[in-house]
């Protein structure tokens, strides 16, 4: 090897190294480093305190056990009813998990404020929610369910809000005969030819129910909102773009079929990997294919990047409608005015003519800097239904509660009147919204509850 030359050269360096100049610097730098790390920790803590006072309001307490003290006058209080709640406390789905948790805790504290649930023993029982982290992953959802059933002996649970996680957890619940009250999971049944395995509806679950929409029908609200446009403004060539996840693909396939069934042309169907950073080639492809309407299922972070790059490429279709990622206020905040005229789905709106909808929306706004939510009503209603079912069953026996929900009708929830079928499925209609200029939410569809009309996505240079 070339050892010799190397030796002579580098020994010269070693001499300069040991002369001390570097050693001195090193000590200073080291002390500096230690100080910096300390400072960083300080900064982080400060920032932490900052946000907890402003945005992280829902995470105040883990359980609502505090309300046990406030007994309703005159009625004897029984033991607390402990209900499990699988939720994404960590992982990719935290954002939605937080809203769901807020709504569930709100529902529990509301019913406790009214005295709790009356069971067959004639006593009132407070509701306590115990949370289990599914870490946004199906395997962990299964683990969480195991843990709930086995370490804590809880056999009734509120669900998480992503389909695969709930599928895995429901599978476990089935094995141990625990009742899993699911919401926010595609309800689709398996296709007759077996090509599509189905989501919750395809699993033939005996111990779980689901209140949501079928992925196949979910796309219809986007189409509904198109139909609400003026004839001349309507797009003619659609692109369906979805993330390559079970949720996304179920939605994408369904939407594509739905659009084509109604006679629209779907010029492009693309599935991208979650966390994708560059959509510019796809935008170019859409541009060249003459696409003028986009329906997508996309996470908020990816959604912001997508719209930013649309603007960079100066491409504006007539119609841009996104599921999952376009509705959070943070999406609007991340894009600013550029998010104007973007359509998005929702499960709920405080403007809906249902009992307590307005108050719930207000409560959410009060605790979230005035930001609105178009989902909490669904989660709140799911909790309401479960509480009602327990009350009707008169016990916390999972089988009895389940029997109340299958084929049950639950009037007056924040989602209106909900009826489950004999498969334990309750399909709820989705809503279509649009960000009006200035960031206000406009309900587009269904037309009977619409607060505005679908507006064409205004080209960038005309803004």
């Amino acid at each position: 090897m070339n050892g010799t030359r190397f030796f002579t050269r580098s020994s010269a360096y070693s001499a300069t190294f040991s002369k001390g100049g570097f050693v001195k610097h090193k000590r200073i730098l080291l002390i500096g480093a230690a100080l910096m790390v300390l400072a960083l920790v300080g900064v982080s803590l400060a920032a932490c305190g900052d946000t907890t006072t402003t945005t992280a309001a829902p995470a105040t307490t883990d359980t609502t056990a505090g309300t046990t003290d406030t007994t309703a006058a005159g009625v004897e209080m029984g033991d607390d009813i402990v209900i499990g709640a699988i939720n994404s406390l960590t992982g990719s789905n935290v954002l939605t998990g937080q809203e769901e948790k807020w709504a569930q805790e709100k529902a529990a504290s509301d019913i406790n404020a009214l005295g709790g649930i009356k069971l067959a023993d004639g006593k009132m029982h407070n509701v306590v929610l115990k949370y289990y982290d599914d870490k946004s992953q199906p395997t962990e959802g299964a683990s969480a369910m195991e843990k709930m059933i086995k370490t804590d002996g809880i056999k009734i649970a509120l669900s998480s809000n992503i389909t695969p996680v709930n599928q895995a957890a429901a599978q476990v619940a089935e094995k141990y005969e625990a009742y899993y009250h699911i919401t926010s999971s595609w309800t689709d049944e398996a296709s007759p030819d077996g090509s599509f395995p189905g989501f919750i509806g395809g699993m033939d679950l005996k111990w779980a129910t689901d209140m949501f929409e079928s992925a196949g029908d979910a796309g219809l609200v986007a189409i509904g909102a198109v139909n609400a446009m003026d004839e001349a403004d309507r797009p003619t060539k659609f692109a369906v773009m979805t993330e390559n996840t079970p949720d996304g693909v179920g939605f994408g396939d369904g939407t594509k079929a739905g659009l084509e069934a109604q006679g629209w042309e779907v010029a492009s169907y693309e599935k991208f990997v979650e966390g994708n950073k560059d959509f510019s080639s796809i935008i170019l492809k859409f541009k060249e294919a003459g696409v003028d309407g986009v329906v997508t299922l996309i996470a908020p972070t990816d959604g912001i990047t997508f719209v930013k790059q649309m603007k960079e490429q100066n491409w504006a279709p007539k119609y841009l409608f996104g599921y999952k990622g376009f509705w959070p206020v943070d999406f609007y905040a991340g894009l600013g005015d550029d998010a104007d005229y973007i359509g998005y789905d929702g499960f709920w709106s405080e403007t809906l003519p249902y009992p307590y909808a307005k108050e719930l929306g207000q409560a959410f706004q009060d605790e979230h800097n005035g930001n609105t939510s178009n989902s909490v009503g669904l989660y709140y209603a799911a909790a309401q239904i479960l509480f009602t079912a327990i009350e009707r069953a008169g016990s916390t026996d999972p089988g009895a509660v389940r029997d109340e929900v299958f084929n049950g009708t639950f009037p007056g929830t924040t989602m209106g009147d909900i009826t489950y079928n004999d498969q334990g499925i309750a399909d709820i209609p989705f809503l279509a919204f649009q960000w009006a200029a200035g960031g206000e939410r406009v309900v587009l569809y269904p037309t009977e509850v619409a607060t505005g009309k679908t507006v064409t996505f205004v080209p960038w240079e005309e803004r």
Partner: protein
Amino acid sequence: MAAGAPLLTLSGVSKHFGGLQVINDLDFVVHESETVGLIGPNGAGKSTVFNLITSIYQPDRGSITFKGTEITGLAPHKICHMGLSRTYQLVRAFLKMSVMENVMMAAVYGVKHHEQGPKQRAAEALELVEMSHKRDVNAAHLTLSDRRLLEIAMGLSSMPSLILLDEPMAGLTEVEIQHLLEVIGTTRDERNFSILWIEHKVDAVLDFCDRVGVIDYGVKIADGCPDDVACDAKVIEAYLGEPVA
């Protein structure tokens, strides 16, 4: 001076790293039952010669034959199976394994078929280098000189016809060097293999070897019996030109 048939032949071997010509058109032969030294100043390219022979590097040009078979570019383990083993300047015994495990490893994998079982061969090799009493010591806890002996034992256990020794005396004390020389001498007499010995320290090699080659800057500048080489003007210049560290 019992030189038999050629065992290892290097002809026209060249190797460069980057812009540096490390070995230049080297011809060299080791015969059966011959002890050959290869000396040269630091960085003359001695270790590279070994790495070329054992196929750790591929030569740019030239060919290397062993027992009449071309071994240029052959996989290192196959070269070992042919009966060529080596030691390393920085000892490369397996430090986390015991002495016996080290030698066993070499005995099991070094020879394809042999009338003696690997256990027997390993034990014998350890006996030859006088290390049987340390068989269960971890190699990491051996002294440097014991590690050198261990490597030699590993080489021996594969029943080689040629052992390449890469500066076995570097870093050893006089006493240890004496012991090492004795061990090498007795084992060589016992097993009758050839030795190609790289050394930086000249005197030991001159005493011990049948024949000595000298290289400097990758070029062979002398090759002959020790006494002649020691008097060669070019050799003296090569050594004095760059002081011995």
